[in-house]
């Protein structure tokens, strides 16, 4: 049977991808960040997932204002990087696991999580940056990737509680898939940041640390955070952290293998946690 073996919480700040693409990892601005990623890259080699379910948000790339879905699961064979204005990132295509994603889609809907599905879509920095963070620059990503998009741009976003529960349903879906597969779940985005308005540049390290301290053992407490709690205290774009809660929902009894936090990266606080499933 398929099994969830690990979870990762990871910021997906575009400049991290740009720095890696330009080979600027040793630049003094980026070095502390990439040095901080090194242990996670070693760890994921040992975890060696066959499939990563990558929870992220599309930043007006594959989807636009015509139709806004709350949850979209990719069920395709291949996802190409999107042109976000600079030309597409020169990273490998994400290769899907269509059979597992079809199983997850049906399981989630029957479990009353009404997912939209994408047979074809491009993927932006929300998906590609966490892959760079964890896997560096391979010729091909070392695992299959199932994209799960969450609307975090248009209010109201799904609640943190809804995301947490969807994570639990995701676990149930994976565990009922007959093939022996090692599955990792990445929850991406965050940490605290605000890109927009006169308050642009807001960071709240206290909020971020509280979130990191409670995600493993007291996620239920974090599920009580309201939209306005996130927007006010973590910055309007800090609400992306609901995607970390979805990852956490997919884990039963995680142990923390690694944690890293760095301020600032561009206009954002960069966070990373690596969890191993112990059950």
């Amino acid at each position: 049977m398929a099994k969830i073996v690990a979870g990762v919480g990871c910021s997906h700040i575009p400049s991290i991808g740009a720095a890696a693409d330009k080979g600027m990892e040793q630049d003094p601005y980026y070095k502390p960040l990439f040095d901080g990623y090194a242990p996670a890259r070693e760890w994921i080699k040992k975890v060696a997932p066959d499939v990563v379910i990558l929870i992220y948000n599309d930043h007006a790339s594959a989807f636009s204002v015509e139709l806004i879905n709350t949850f979209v699961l990719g069920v395709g064979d291949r996802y190409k990087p999107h042109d976000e204005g600079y030309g597409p990132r020169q990273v490998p295509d994400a290769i899907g696991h269509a059979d597992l994603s079809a199983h997850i889609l049906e399981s989630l809907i029957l479990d009353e999580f009404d997912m939209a599905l994408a047979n074809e879509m491009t993927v932006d920095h929300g998906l590609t940056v966490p892959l760079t963070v964890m896997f560096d620059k391979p010729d091909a990503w070392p695992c299959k990737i199932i994209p799960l998009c969450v609307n975090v741009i248009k209010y109201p976003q799904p609640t943190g509680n809804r995301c947490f529960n969807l994570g639990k349903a995701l676990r149930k879906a994976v565990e009922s898939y007959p093939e022996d597969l090692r599955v990792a779940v990445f929850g991406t985005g965050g940490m605290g940041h605000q890109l927009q308005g006169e308050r642009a540049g807001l960071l709240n390290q206290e909020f971020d640390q509280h979130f990191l301290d409670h995600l493993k053992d007291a996620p239920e407490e974090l599920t009580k955070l309201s939209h306005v709690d996130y927007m006010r205290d973590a910055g309007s774009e800090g609400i992306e952290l609901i995607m970390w809660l979805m990852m956490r929902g997919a884990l039963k009894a995680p142990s923390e293998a690694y944690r890293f936090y760095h301020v600032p990266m561009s206009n954002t606080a960069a966070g990373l946690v690596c969890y191993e499933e112990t059950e």
Partner: protein
Amino acid sequence: MGAEIPMEKDYDDIPGTYVFDTKRCKDGFHLNKFCKTLDDAANRALFKADPSAYLDQFPMTTEQRAMIEQRDWLGMLQVGGNIYYTFKLAIFDGLTMQHVGGLMSDMTVDDFRAMMLDGGRKLEGNQSKKQNQERKPEQSEIHNPSER
């Protein structure tokens, strides 16, 4: 259960923040759609060649069009723009998120970068319009980082 939707939006109390809710999303539809087309290199070339003719394709309000033409990044948000869309125009202009962050908060890009390196804009004084009014009615809502 069913959450109640208050008429007065709780998030309107957050200073300097334009929550992209359903109304703003509707109001800003054509503005955001214009920005979205800049994902395509061929469209970027067309916009570069003749900005005015390119913008004519999108039935925006006069005000929205003026915000775009003036590159008023804060104004765009106030008339329904969303930062992930308007940033596509900023990328077209060769700007980074620090440039735009500075322009929206009346700071130079160097000051904005320095503020980020110093740990970002502080929450204190930037958390609630109501609180700010109660504390210091004479001061503006947004802390000027140079005052810190």
